[in-house]
């Protein structure tokens, strides 16, 4: 276990920049999720850490040692591949033993460690099977055991759950987190699934177009997104574009004036991000708040969502705990007039330049 430092890591393919000066410090025993849409450079970053891709520029250090130019087999990383990449001609036990064999661990010790690793992922009884005789979830756990058994300095996972069905994904996710904590592994976990990243990681790195958008704990990213991209990618946000007209006042493009904390913003163009679950819906026209008409009510079980068209033409989505029978809100449907309110401090002003999550480029 050792800390991992990326220093202005960069990868160019011709004139295309896949990874754009990414700097990151993963502390010992920490799980950091690399999160971003498909094609944003997550896999490229991870493969540079593992040594399969040479960076164009920048430095990688593992436990203080500069490994930027070391071949993969001389770096102390344990990688779990998206396709699992098990050795098809070896049994489960042989797969797991491979790394120990390469490290010349004495046979008796290797056997004990393989057994312990397989027990750790609850596969002890399948040690003599071939990979193709296992289910997807079992193959995934073999891949985990194979990477863990060598006690890697850095544990790398590339979308390890994407080939599992929804139920299994949840199970293995919990399992990975438990193992990682128990063994105190320094871990980089790549995913495009924000829920996965939020529930799993100590800290998240949000990437877009190869550029780090924000680094922080799940709560920091959720409560204080650094820009519109993060606001839209982590959880959901309503976005209203407009201008800061004076201290504490924001006017939307449709002319709606709102009280908003404007610290750090000079008068000028800005965007306002507002979480749906921070908005309260009050049936009818009330004095304080913003009024509009309900366009759509979506029942989601525990919560109900109201899509509201404001008088100026802009739209906001509000999420409320599903009202109980008898609550006047229960009777609100499409076409009804409602009033929306929210605490001013939950509004977050952001620079207006970046749009909603982009989904461009390759895999």
């Amino acid at each position: 276990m050792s800390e991992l430092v990326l220093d202005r890591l960069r990868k160019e393919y011709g004139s295309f920049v896949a990874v754009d000066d990414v700097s990151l410090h993963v502390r010992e025993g920490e799980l950091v999720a690399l999160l971003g849409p498909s094609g944003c450079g997550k896999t490229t970053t991870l493969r540079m850490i593992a040594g399969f891709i040479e960076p164009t520029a920048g430095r990688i250090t593992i436990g203080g040692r500069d490994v930027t130019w070391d071949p993969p087999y001389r770096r102390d990383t344990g990688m779990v591949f998206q396709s699992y990449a098990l050795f098809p001609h070896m049994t489960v036990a042989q797969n797991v033993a491979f790394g120990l064999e390469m490290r010349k661990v004495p046979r008796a010790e290797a056997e004990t460690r393989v057994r312990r690793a397989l027990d750790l992922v609850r596969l002890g009884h399948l040690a003599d099977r071939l990979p193709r005789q296992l289910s997807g979830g079992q193959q995934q756990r073999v891949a985990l055991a194979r990477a863990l058994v060598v006690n890697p300095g850095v544990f790398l996972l590339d979308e390890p759950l994407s080939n599992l069905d929804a139920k299994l994904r949840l199970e293995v996710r919990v399992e990975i987190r438990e193992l990682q904590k128990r063994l105190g592994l320094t871990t980089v976990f790549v995913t495009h699934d924000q829920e996965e990243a939020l529930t799993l990681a100590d800290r998240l790195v949000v990437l877009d177009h190869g550029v780090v958008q924000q680094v922080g704990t799940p709560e920091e990213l959720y409560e204080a997104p650094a820009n519109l991209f993060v606001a839209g990618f982590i959880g959901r946000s309503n976005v209203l574009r407009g201008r800061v007209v004076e201290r504490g006042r924001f006017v939307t493009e449709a002319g709606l004036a709102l009280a908003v904390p404007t610290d750090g913003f000079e008068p000028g163009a800005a965007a306002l991000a507002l979480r749906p679950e921070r908005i309260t819906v009050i049936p009818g026209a009330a004095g304080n708040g913003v009024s509009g008409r309900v366009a759509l009510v979506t029942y989601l079980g525990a919560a109900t969502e109201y899509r509201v068209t404001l008088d100026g033409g802009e739209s906001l989505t509000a999420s409320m705990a599903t009202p109980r029978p008898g609550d006047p809100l229960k009777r609100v449907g499409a076409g009804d007039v409602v009033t929306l309110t929210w605490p001013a401090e939950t509004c977050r002003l952001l620079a207006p330049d970046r749009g909603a999550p982009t989904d461009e480029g390759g895999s």
Partner: protein
Amino acid sequence: MAPAGRAARLKRRAGRWVLRAIAALVFFFIFIPVIFVVWISLFQQQIVSFPPEGYTLRWYENAFARTEFRDGFGLSLQVAFLAMLIGVTSGAAAAYAIVRFRFPGREALNTLLLGPLVVPGIVAGTSLYVYYIMVENILDMDFRATLHGLVLGHILLTIPWTVRLVSASLIGLDRAVEEAAMNLGAGPWTTFRRITLPMMRPGLVAASLFSFIQSFENLELTLLLVGPGRTTLPVAMLNYLEFRIDPTIAAVATVQIVLIGALMLITDRFVKLSRIV
């Protein structure tokens, strides 16, 4: 409702029977020459006519007694084995390079190595014959009617098959598996030996089998490269036919069929041929 259901079921069943009948017919037409060859090899009379007057094993006796068949068989085995060994080793290396590396002339090399597949054997054989004469003059060394001359010629038969079969098996190989080995500490050579090579095994086995058969049964390319006392089995059979038409030739052919059939069955035990070809 019920009659419609029964009609559909009948139709489905009829369809299945038609399919089976077609399959049986195809098999029949493929195997009919084989069946006839084996049958005729047992005929009593010298001039083949139907129905047989009786059955005998004397044509087999004759086949084994004649030196041209015994020597031919031995030479064919030798040539096929050597051509397979050299062709599969070099062909597999070439296939690996072609699939794994990007280098100038890669496509051209691929086309070149598959080339012999599209050249008629008799043309290739004639060209080789002329080429060997030239080389003999320059090197002052025999090539026609020699073992090495035959082996070199037959490598032209074994390389294209190997390149095709091994390339196919390499293309289907997930590179992440090799990366996983390197990630676990295996250097390039260990990775190749412990991971890549075993995963190429089915392709290599199939390539060896097909190379062997291609060489063992080749007639056209070999025709001009043999000489007195150095004749492969197929050429020896052709020579025999020039003077005599008796069931001996069918007996030799039967031995050939049994050998190739046995090779395929043995191979199939190690790798399922239906999965590769």
